């Protein structure tokens, strides 16, 4: 075997696992899901090509309202996560030095090595009727009886923000870390105040981190299942829960596949828009 043939063979051997993985587990399954979403069951085991599943989504208010609600709440959760984590990331990146800095950064990561189920369970213990907060309020005298804090939108929001925090803090700390102190000082020297320095120097510098954090948080929130279902209870619908219902409970795979495709479309659209607005590419932000 000459050298050229050997190089070719090794390239082929390295390519093979990648192609099997991407084609077999990513491309074909999504294509198949799309194909299934475009058919309608006309009789037992007989299907016809149609847009009926998509029509059903748009004509049934429950479906598109859940979809819109999921999108709006995910957007809000992303904004809140950014708002809460920005000062924290700034503090870690710019106000601290050495050991304490490394320690607090590590402390930010620790909760996220625990499964999402455990984290959500913790919130349930805190917020339920017989939970810690309810008892605390009664003990202090702010409430006369048990207070139920689960099963409403605010609680879902608390859980979603909590779950997303890591994915915002890490990119923010990384970008803020690279901001030179001298630039901030120069801003003050030129007569800026805290607000104008923040607006014209710090935020523009942190923009890549802000965008990649927001994209990841939005995507994860949109696709979240546990937090809305466990903290939100039965009446609070989340789109992924709708997909689960169609697939597993109702066994209506055609409609479920259409829902899946709509959710994928929405998340791709948002990620794409975010990348375009910030002039970044997927390869740069994720790779």
């Amino acid at each position, binding site marked *: 075997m000459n050298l050229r043939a050997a190089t070719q063979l090794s390239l082929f051997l390295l390519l093979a*696992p990648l192609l099997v*993985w991407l084609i077999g587990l990513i491309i074909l399954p999504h294509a198949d899901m799309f194909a299934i979403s475009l058919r309608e069951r006309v009789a037992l085991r007989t299907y016809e090509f149609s847009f009926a599943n998509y029509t059903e989504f748009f004509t049934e208010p429950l479906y598109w309202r859940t979809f819109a609600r999921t999108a709006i709440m995910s957007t809000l959760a992303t904004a809140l996560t950014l708002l809460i984590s920005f000062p924290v990331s700034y503090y870690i990146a710019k106000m601290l030095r050495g050991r304490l800095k490394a320690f607090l950064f590590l*402390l930010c990561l620790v909760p996220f090595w625990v499964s999402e189920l455990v984290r959500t369970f913790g919130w349930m213990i805190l917020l339920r009727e017989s939970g810690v907060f309810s008892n605390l309020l009664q003990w202090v005298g702010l409430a006369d009886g048990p207070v139920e804090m689960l099963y409403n939108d605010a609680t879902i929001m608390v859980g979603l923000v909590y779950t997303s925090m890591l994915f915002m803090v890490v990119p923010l700390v990384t970008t803020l870390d690279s901001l030179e102190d001298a630039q901030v000082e120069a801003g003050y020297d030129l007569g800026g105040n805290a607000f104008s320095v923040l607006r014209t120097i710090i935020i523009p510098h942190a923009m890549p981190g802000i965008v990649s954090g927001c994209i990841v948080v939005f995507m994860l929130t949109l696709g979240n299942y546990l937090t809305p279902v466990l903290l939100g209870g039965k009446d609070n619908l989340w789109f992924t829960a709708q997909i689960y219902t169609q697939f597993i409970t109702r066994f209506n795979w055609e409609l479920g596949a259409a829902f899946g495709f709509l959710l994928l479309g929405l998340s791709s659209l948002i990620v794409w828009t975010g990348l375009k607005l910030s002039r970044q590419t997927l390869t740069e932000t994720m790779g």
Partner: protein
Amino acid sequence: MIPSIPQPKSFRAMYAAYIVMFFVYLVMPLAVVAIFAFNDSMFPSLPWGGFTMDWFFNPTEPRLGLFHDGRLLESIWTSFFIACWVTVLSVAVGTTNAFLFERRDFPFKSFLYMLMLLPLVVPGVILGISILVFSSTIANWLENSFGIDVEFLRPSTFLVIVGQFSFIATITTLVIAARLRKFDTALEEAAQSLGASRLTAVWTVTLPYLKPAIIGAAIVAFLMSFENFNTTLMLVGSDQPLTIAMYGRLREGSTPELNALSLLLMAVSGGLALLSVFVQREKD
């Protein structure tokens, strides 16, 4: 707003207070889970009934301890089995991918690289259902054309492994490729000029250099598989992995046994996470 710029004392105090509040918020849910694992009561809620280790060690119903609960232990085993397979597969593919993308040039390279990143931006539920749909399409086709029923293509542990692998492989690829990028190829060339074949050079020089990243990637893959819920939920068969079993119990109404289990998970994954930080630090 940096230490060298003077700020009013009150502002500094408020800022520090905000940071403290943030960390309280971060730690609180985990702390209550841990504390209530020792509550001598049937429910993981107040009032506090005193300290007990029953939820770990009690052998009888109705206060069955974690270490005597056969169904839970079985689901831990299922999760462990799945996580091992996912780890082996995604580290193997991650390593070949790293060599492919860092060392080779081939047509459509940047397109394939982008495609490789896609699983990171596809919601887990959708990865799950697309694999469910596709595998049952294959299974139905096999059944209708040849009359064979391939059971593992229906929701099963096999599908869970495949589903988790489909996105964890991206993460292991990124971790291993980042390390390979820093490798000085002169070392490999030196080995070859001393008479080693190319494969021997890679095996004895490059792979040992990659070891920290490979171990790190393996730990991350194991943890991500162990705690995965969204993708697993859609593909799970009759053997329930831990997250699915816990979810079922949470919905039924839970006992402090779940807290005990959660505490155990925290200890194990916290330890593994620290280990991975340690292993990664060694490389620099």
